[in-house]
């Protein structure tokens, strides 16, 4: 209750009382002016919080020494190691947060303490990330604000500010290529090109406030958060116990971690096949991989052929909407087959492939029929145009006959 009362007092003060912090700092230059200039865009400012809400002091006092008096709780610039606790003062207070965001979580600080960042800060390592390193300071924006450094499209670069900096990472002896690799991945393409903000970014796999790298045993679970069916099939497959015994990181073994490429049959067979890293082409595993690649390739080729015929028919104005709709079912079968690869059993892949091939053959046939009808229409048009032309010529002769008859009269 006391905290709510304090928050209400802050709001009232912001609305009616003067703010000597902003008044003075706005008149200063450079680093001392920057916080006052930026704070107008800060989400806290919009909710009535002031500089004193974090830094303490008395914003109603004109005299700087009174305004920044330790007796009035002024703490100045907080130590980096103290920042998480300072933010948590409000953000861990469920009653206070409920006033502004009823559904907002209040366990960020608890999660942070379990993270690598939080543990290092607790050990006194001031180079580890604290709240303001990710959320910025004085111009903190909501996550949904596209200008926020933690907005999905900007989050990878925010993490990369430290994790892609060799100087910063040197003492931790961890690589700095994650951001560059991630930006080659299908996940980043989904966010940046596809506009799918729900596609995975760093926080989706590592967590945000409780950020840690997934351990060997948990990688499949992490990927399985989104790729449920694949994870389920993998966990039941013969690869799971083998990879676990070898200490291999499940999904990462074939798909890598940060630079995850768009899966294709080339991963199963051919010079770039990941299967061939362990299985010889003549082994049972190698043959199964080649068979699965061929099955998927067959359906892809059949759909491509059907697509080409239907696209041509559509370009020529033929109505093939039903076939296009059916083709979506074949596409779903292709997706199912790609998922079924994670069972590492050609029979599991063959079932959706055969269903898809039937549909692709039917849609291609529909497209070909449409093209035949187009040709028929054009032939019909040619015949009609000849008939029309003959009629026009006949009319011209009729006019000439009528007019010459009159002239003769």
């Amino acid at each position: 209750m006391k905290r709510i009362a304090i928050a209400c007092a802050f709001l009232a003060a912001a609305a009616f009382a003067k703010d000597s912090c902003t008044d003075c700092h706005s008149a200063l230059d450079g680093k001392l002016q920057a916080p006052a200039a930026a704070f107008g865009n800060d989400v806290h400012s919009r909710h009535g919080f002031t500089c004193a809400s974090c830094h303490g002091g008395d914003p109603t006092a004109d005299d700087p020494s009174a305004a920044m008096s330790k007796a009035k709780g002024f703490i100045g610039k907080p130590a980096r190691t103290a920042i998480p606790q300072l933010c948590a003062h409000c953000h861990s207070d469920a009653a206070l947060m409920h006033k502004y965001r009823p559904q907002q979580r209040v366990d960020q600080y608890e999660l942070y303490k379990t993270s690598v960042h939080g543990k290092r800060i607790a050990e006194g390592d001031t180079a580890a990330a604290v709240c303001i390193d990710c959320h910025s300071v004085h111009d903190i924006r909501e996550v949904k604000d596209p200008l926020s450094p933690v907005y999905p499209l900007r989050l990878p670069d925010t993490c990369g500010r430290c994790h892609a900096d060799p100087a910063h990472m040197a003492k931790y002896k961890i690589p700095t290529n994650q951001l560059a690799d991630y930006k080659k991945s299908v996940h980043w393409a989904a966010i940046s090109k596809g506009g799918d903000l729900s596609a995975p970014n760093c926080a989706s796999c590592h967590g945000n406030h409780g950020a840690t790298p997934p351990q060997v045993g948990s990688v499949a679970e992490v990927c399985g958060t989104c790729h449920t069916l694949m994870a389920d099939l993998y966990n039941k497959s013969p690869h799971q116990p083998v990879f676990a015994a070898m200490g291999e990181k499940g999904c990462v073994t074939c798909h890598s971690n940060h630079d995850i490429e768009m899966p294709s049959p080339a991963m199963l067979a051919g010079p770039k096949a990941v299967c061939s890293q362990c299985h010889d082409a003549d082994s049972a595993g190698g043959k199964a991989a080649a068979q699965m690649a061929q099955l998927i390739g067959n359906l892809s080729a059949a759909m491509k052929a059907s697509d080409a015929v239907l696209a041509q028919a559509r370009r020529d104005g033929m109505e093939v909407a039903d076939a296009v709709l059916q083709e979506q079912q074949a596409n779903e079968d292709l997706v199912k087959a790609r998922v079924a690869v994670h069972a590492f059993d050609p029979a599991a892949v063959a079932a959706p492939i055969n269903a898809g091939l039937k549909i692709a053959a039917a849609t291609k046939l529909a497209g070909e029929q449409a093209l035949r009808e187009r040709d028929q229409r054009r032939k019909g048009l040619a015949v009609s145009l000849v008939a029309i032309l003959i009629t026009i010529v006949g009319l011209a002769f009729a006019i000439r006959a009528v007019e010459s008859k009159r002239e003769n009269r």
Partner: protein
Amino acid sequence: MATTTITSRQRVAGWLDERLGLSSLKEFLSHKTVPIHSATMWYYFGGITLFLFTIQVLTGILLLLYYRPTASEAYESVQFIMTRVRFGWLIRSIHSWSANLMIFTAFVHMFSVVFLRAYRRPRELTWFSGIALLGLALGFGFSGYLLPWNTISYFATKVGTDMASAVPVVGSTIARFLRGGEDVGGATLTRFFGFHVAVLPGIATTLIFVHLMLVQKHGISSPPWVEQKTGGKVPQMKFFPNFFLREMMAWYAALGVLGSLAAIFPWELGEKADPFASAPAGIHPEWYFLAPFYTLKLIPSQVLFVEGELLGLFGFAVLALWWVLLPFWATNPKGEERARLVTGAGVALLAYLVTFSLLGYFR
């Protein structure tokens, strides 16, 4: 004693003449004439427009056999016509193409009337009825555009009816009347269908009758410079059969163009309308509404203290009224023709329509 042989054909003709008075019609047609001069070809466009309207009516009736005017069935019924009904694709494509060609030829007819000065006294009412028919053709286009209930037509109608709501005082009432509710939906489709197949055809048929009667009463106008050159004795050709046979040649040519367009570029059906989807990018109305559409896009949202859209609509209303009243301002109080002003206005309007339609299409 001389005997006359009456053929069976003459007997039938006589029987019909006695009941229908065909000989008086024949007599009437034999006296109707059309002026002959270098611009005679422009006289054909009125007839071509009428021919395309007839095609509209015939193909429209055929479409009515299968079309269902409800939000849940409209799209599917048009799809059925296009894919399952024998020659359904041809009927629908001809209906859509002839609608567009009819509006085009109506515009050509209107501008030919302006440039040939055919609106002059005593043909003011012919001009008014013609302009009203052009307005009705645009109404046919607007109401018919929604009927397939596809994405483009849905959002174009949304934009079109939104414009109506910008009119002060009565705007929201007009928009609600057109939509049959607060937003474009099933009620709008039913309403537009009613306008398209009953209200507008009824009014159009009456007006076409009036327009033709007036043309008949006043005869076909000759341009003043032709009258001057020939001393009022402009050479004439008989309407029937000379002009009529030529007009038929034009109709057959129009039929050929129409058939070619329908067979080579069948009218697309697009995707079914989804009221919950966002409007597709780059959406624009049919070509005949592009010029005002692009003009409204160019006007800032606020001009001084007036809403931009409202200012644009007011401008169009003033422009339309000024154009309708052309026969009155085309002569000065002394009764002298303001030929340069009329030609200038016609060229300016034509240039505006062509330029802004192209800009609206490509931008």
